[in-house]
């Protein structure tokens, strides 16, 4: 009993060790931690409130008081970027959480119980996935009314099929493997089999997918905000900041550059981390 426990711990340790070797992934973890901290402590970090307008400072160049300068309404860009971190991260993380919980549950049920339960769920997912994802997202968000909360729900709901199918496929694969038969032969109960054997083995690809999905949803959230369906003014979000800059792009393109870069760095970090996790969880796939 103790040996089995020790082995499980060392498997996790193995994964962490492989992950540590991947410099890009480690770097991404740091970047993401910093971004999340910025989001949480935005109130303390931002030098100015995000909606403090000052027309005399309109389009001000970067200066010691305003490190990145000001936008067309004289608002400090750096502060707005910092506050926007919170909104964009919420869109990404919360939406993924919703999709993840709903999706994983659906996938588990379909995968483990099989039979007509599986069939019904799969048909349901088929209909779901027949609508191009962003189209569904926009439709839900618009129909529910423009707000951050609705955007989170919309993105979350439209992303459910991905983890659901992945989890189901994973469970189906693991379920048929011989070590499950072996566990059954040792008279293990169903619940024990699910918890101790199936889920730890099946969860790996889903974890990778979820990490990438966070990045994907941040992008979707920014896209929704760009067309006005996500975060509402005056609360800044990276997508809305790009939208704000759209009309003055000709002369002040840099106002659109900063928020776009922020999005890109965050999503890049998510993707690098996801790649790293995938290599760490199954090194055979790497070479």
């Amino acid at each position, binding site marked *: 009993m103790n040996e089995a426990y020790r082995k499980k711990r060392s498997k996790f340790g193995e994964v962490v060790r492989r992950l540590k070797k991947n410099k890009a992934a480690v770097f991404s973890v740091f970047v993401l931690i910093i971004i999340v901290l910025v989001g949480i402590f935005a109130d303390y970090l931002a030098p100015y409130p995000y909606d403090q307008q000052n027309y005399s400072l309109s389009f001000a160049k970067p200066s010691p008081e305003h490190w990145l300068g000001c936008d067309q309404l004289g608002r400090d860009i750096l502060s707005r970027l910092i506050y926007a971190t919170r909104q964009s991260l919420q869109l990404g993380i919360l939406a993924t959480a919703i999709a993840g919980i709903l999706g994983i549950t659906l996938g588990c049920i379909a995968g483990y119980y099989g039979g007509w339960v599986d069939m019904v769920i799969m048909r349901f997912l088929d209909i779901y996935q027949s609508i191009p994802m962003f189209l569904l997202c926009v*439709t839900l968000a618009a129909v529910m009314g423009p707000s951050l909360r609705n955007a989170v729900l919309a993105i979350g709901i439209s992303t459910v099929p991905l983890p659901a199918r992945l989890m189901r496929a994973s469970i189906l694969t693991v379920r048929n493997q011989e070590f499950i038969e072996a566990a059954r032969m040792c008279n293990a109960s169903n619940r024990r089999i699910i918890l101790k054997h199936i889920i730890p083995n099946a969860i790996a690809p889903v974890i990778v997918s979820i990490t990438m999905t966070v990045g994907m949803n941040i*992008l979707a959230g920014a896209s929704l905000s760009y067309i006005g369906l996500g975060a509402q003014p005056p609360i800044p979000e990276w997508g809305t900041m790009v939208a704000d800059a759209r009309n003055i792009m000709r002369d002040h393109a840099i106002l659109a550059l900063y928020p776009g870069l922020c999005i890109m760095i965050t999503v890049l970090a998510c993707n690098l981390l996801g790649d790293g996790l995938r290599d760490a969880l199954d090194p055979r796939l790497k070479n």
Partner: protein
Amino acid sequence: MLRFIGKRLLMMIPIMLGIILVVQIFITITPGDPVRLMSGDLLSEEEMEELRVQLGLRDPFFVRYVNYIKNILRGDFGTSYRTHRPVLTEIMSRFPYSLLLVSVSLALALAIGIPIGIYAATHQYSWKDNLSIIAALFCVSMPSFWFALMLIQLFAVKLRIFPPSGVDRWIGWVLPSVTLALEYCATIARQTRSNMLEVIRQDYITTARAKGLAERKVRYRHALKNAIIPVIMIVGQIFGRALGGSMIFEVIFSIPGLGAYTISALQNRDYPVIMSSVLILSTLFAVVLLIVDVIFALVDPRIRSQYIGKNKRKKPPVTQQPLKPLESVEGGNAS
């Protein structure tokens, strides 16, 4: 094969019914009154109510559902609340633009992505390979609308090579299709690269070398043909992503396509347009997926023999199945 196609077409019907149901549910349970939006202060309360009854907005849920379906079967997709013109004409006049944008982008993505993937795979471990991986990651992590704006700024405003918007001339199509293609190009390149890497390690490649084939021939005749097959599998999914992603591009580049039309219909609560747009775009997606599956079945002899010919056999064992795609393909921008 025809049976396969027939079965798939038949399966599309319940799916379409399901889509109509789902969209109608969402329209019903969320707030927003199109009549008020349309008429504003022009009509009195009774007149607005009369209008609602006339438009069928007061009918019970299933009556509306069945009526909509009955109308579609007659070819009547409803009348736009905003423009009062038949929805079908509006949609059909815009549909070609969307289709063209997505098709050109996809073609570009394949034409550029596949060679890059092959190049990266055959130069593995070199700086060219690493560069392509990094570039692909960047492309996939960028917000597409932002990138489009940046490119407009650079090429249209500063350099004045392309027009910033409008597709009346062919040159106006370059910027939108290239920008839209970029992200999918990266996905296709990554997929091709990883497939090539996997295929190159297979025994039959060593056999080909041992036969005395020049390395070039080994690569293109044997390796590439095998590696491309899973890429075909994902083209359908990418088409769906591109359909979704193109919506924003139509807005940015002022392309009079179905996506932009749908977005404005959503903002105006133009129910018939919303319903029909979603239905038509989803049907297009389903048809493309079917076409891709048929091509895939024709191209891969292992799958082909399951469907046509007198030697119909069971599925070949797992070791001989075609490669599975790299990762869940749905991901990235606006899709």
